[in-house]
């Protein structure tokens, strides 16, 4: 695999930035407005990647996968917006969200240069890596840090559906070989 997985960098960002340092954990604990922002941003990133794929992908399974990503991530983000509105919470931008967005726009630019089967392969490989990263972050950080029960619940629903995406992406990747 010569594709540089930007997700690995995103993982490093998520795992090493304000979030995990063990000693300072309590002080650095993410707040609900920050968690909501990170989760929403992660969804938008995958929607943008999928929209690019819907235009560029050649393989029909890859196209269908991209459509699935738009449908599901938009559904989750719609729920997230409804929830923050209900809770009267304003999502708060933060370093993790910023790092994720920066990585994502670099990845979009990188993938934009590819076409045909090379694009399909690179997109799906990144989807596998990206969902792994986001799921890891949800499991180990975002869900445990969330205070509000409804937010926690929505993140858990998100984790469940994104784990399905990860497996779906792995399956599509295997079929492309």
């Amino acid at each position, binding site marked *: 695999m010569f594709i540089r997985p930007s997700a690995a960098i995103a993982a490093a960002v998520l795992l090493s930035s304000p979030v995990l340092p063990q000693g300072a954990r309590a002080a650095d604990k993410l707040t609900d407005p920050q968690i909501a922002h990170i989760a929403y941003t992660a969804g938008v990133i995958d929607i943008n990647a999928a929209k690019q794929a819907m235009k560029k992908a050649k393989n029909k399974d890859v196209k*269908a996968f991209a459509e*699935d990503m738009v*449908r*599901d991530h938009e*559904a*989750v983000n*719609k*729920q997230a917006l409804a929830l923050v509105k209900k809770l009267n919470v304003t999502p708060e931008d933060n370093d993790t969200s910023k790092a994720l967005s920066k990585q994502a726009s670099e990845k979009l630019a990188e993938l934009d240069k590819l076409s045909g089967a090379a694009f399909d392969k690179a997109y799906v490989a990144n989807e596998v890596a990206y969902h792994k990263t986001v799921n890891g972050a949800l499991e180990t950080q975002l869900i445990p840090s969330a205070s509000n029960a409804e937010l926690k619940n929505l993140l858990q*629903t998100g984790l*469940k*559906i994104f784990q*399905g995406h990860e*497996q*779906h992406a792995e*399956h599509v990747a295997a079929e492309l070989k």
Partner: protein
Amino acid sequence: MMPGRLASTALAVVFLTMVVPADAATIEITMENLVISPAEISAKVGDTIQWVNKDVFAHTATARNGDFDVTLPPNKSAASVLKKAGTIEYYCRYHPNMKAMLKVEP
């Protein structure tokens, strides 16, 4: 009056036997939290499956053998009548992890 009543009774009998077999049932299959339940169920030809999607995600009930392909928008339900006997594996095209089995008896 009698002949009329007889005729309508006869008509009713005809309709009942044609349209609704005496033992036709409605069976509910639910999709909730990305799980199809019950995961395995038996039904008979002529029974109606009431598909209920309780998720905020769109799902499908898609038979691997092509017998049916029902699309279920978020929080919507749909009905389909079983026309053929067989053991049908089906899944959600959008979430292929969602799988279940329907045994349709003649």
